[in-house]
């Protein structure tokens, strides 16, 4: 698979949120306002690129080398959790503007399945280092795209009169289904 196909596949065809269902908690949780959605999207792109490449290196050069593949789940979650903590501390010290922008979204990323999911997918699909790097970045871009589109729709829904049982999460899920339907049209492109 060439890199162009890989990029299209990561953003549209296998969109992490709408086709693979990873990272749905922040998808529903941070999409009520455009501002928070943009913050979350940026934080995910930032962390996912680092987590995707670092877990790939650890898996290939530590776990496989020493025959510890069965420790993958524990190793990955520890790497992601400490990476998020480290990034938070680093940004707070050296780039306070960015830290203020990402704010509370950084710690939330530890339990974002999209991050862990992409790290596992990179390994399962047997990507090379460069492919893993590209896939991590563009999966995160796909996440951001879907999240920002969804936040825009949700701000509109707030103004609409929705029947009581459908309010809040229920109508949000159905809207997500509609966006997913739109992304579904990309299927078969790659």
């Amino acid at each position, binding site marked *: 698979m060439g890199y162009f196909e890989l990029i299209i596949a990561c953003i549209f065809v296998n969109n992490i949120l709408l086709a693979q269902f990873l990272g749905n908690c922040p998808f529903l949780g941070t999409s009520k306002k455009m501002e928070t959605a943009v913050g979350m999207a940026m934080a995910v792109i930032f962390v996912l690129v680092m987590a995707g490449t670092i877990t790939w290196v650890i898996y290939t050069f530590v776990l496989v080398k020493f025959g510890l593949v069965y420790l993958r789940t524990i190793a990955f979650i520890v790497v992601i959790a400490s990476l998020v903590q480290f990034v938070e501390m680093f940004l707070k010290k050296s780039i306070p503007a960015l830290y203020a922008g990402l704010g509370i979204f950084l710690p939330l990323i530890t339990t974002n399945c999209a991050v862990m999911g992409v790290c596992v997918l990179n390994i399962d699909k047997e990507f090379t280092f460069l492919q893993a790097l590209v896939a991590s970045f563009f999966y995160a871009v796909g996440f951001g795209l879907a999240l920002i589109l969804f936040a825009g729709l949700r701000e509109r829904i707030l103004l609409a009169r929705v029947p009581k049982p459908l309010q809040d999460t229920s109508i949000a899920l159905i809207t997500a289904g509609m966006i*997913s339907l739109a992304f579904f049209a990309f299927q078969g492109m790659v």
Partner: protein
Amino acid sequence: MPKTIVQEFTKGLWEELPPFRLVLGLCPVLGVTTSMENGLGMGIATTFVLFGSNFLVSMLRSIIPQKVRIACFIIIIAAFVTIVELLMQAYAYPLYLKLGVFIPLIVVNCIVLGRAEAFAYKNKVSYSIADGLGIGIGFTLSLGALGAVRELIGNGSVTVWGDVSYNLLTAFPSYQPFSFMVQAPGAFICLGLMLCVINAVGD
């Protein structure tokens, strides 16, 4: 009024029914419910992890320091997830392949971490086990129900463990399977509609 063990168990079945009442842990709910069998399998795996992590977190709650508790919870949960992964590879390999990436992702399922933080860290071992099992069984039933609805509408039949099955086509021969339901967009819409029904009934 403090709740009894039985109440802690049964609250997971309706009052705090995981994916519907507490809208948490949606990724596996949407991702694996293309059939009833997958949904139940995922539910049982999650129940085991919930039971184990609640038990261990509750037992160690006086030792785990307040400041690093989240990290400790995650390690405990990850250990149980690894146990489930290895057990499934040994005894339920076809199911393991079908659930794929969602098995390691139990680690980041908000329900499991949520119960450890909100319940097991503050309560006695017996109560925590009841809570874990109740929430786990509620989660399993919800996944099974969602899987059954999607499979029935999408395929026209429901199959469990390969033999017990119900075929809608025998009752309504002219029924056309609505395959949209077993694909990605159907997951969101079906869950949204079920949430709406549960909200309407709950009120």
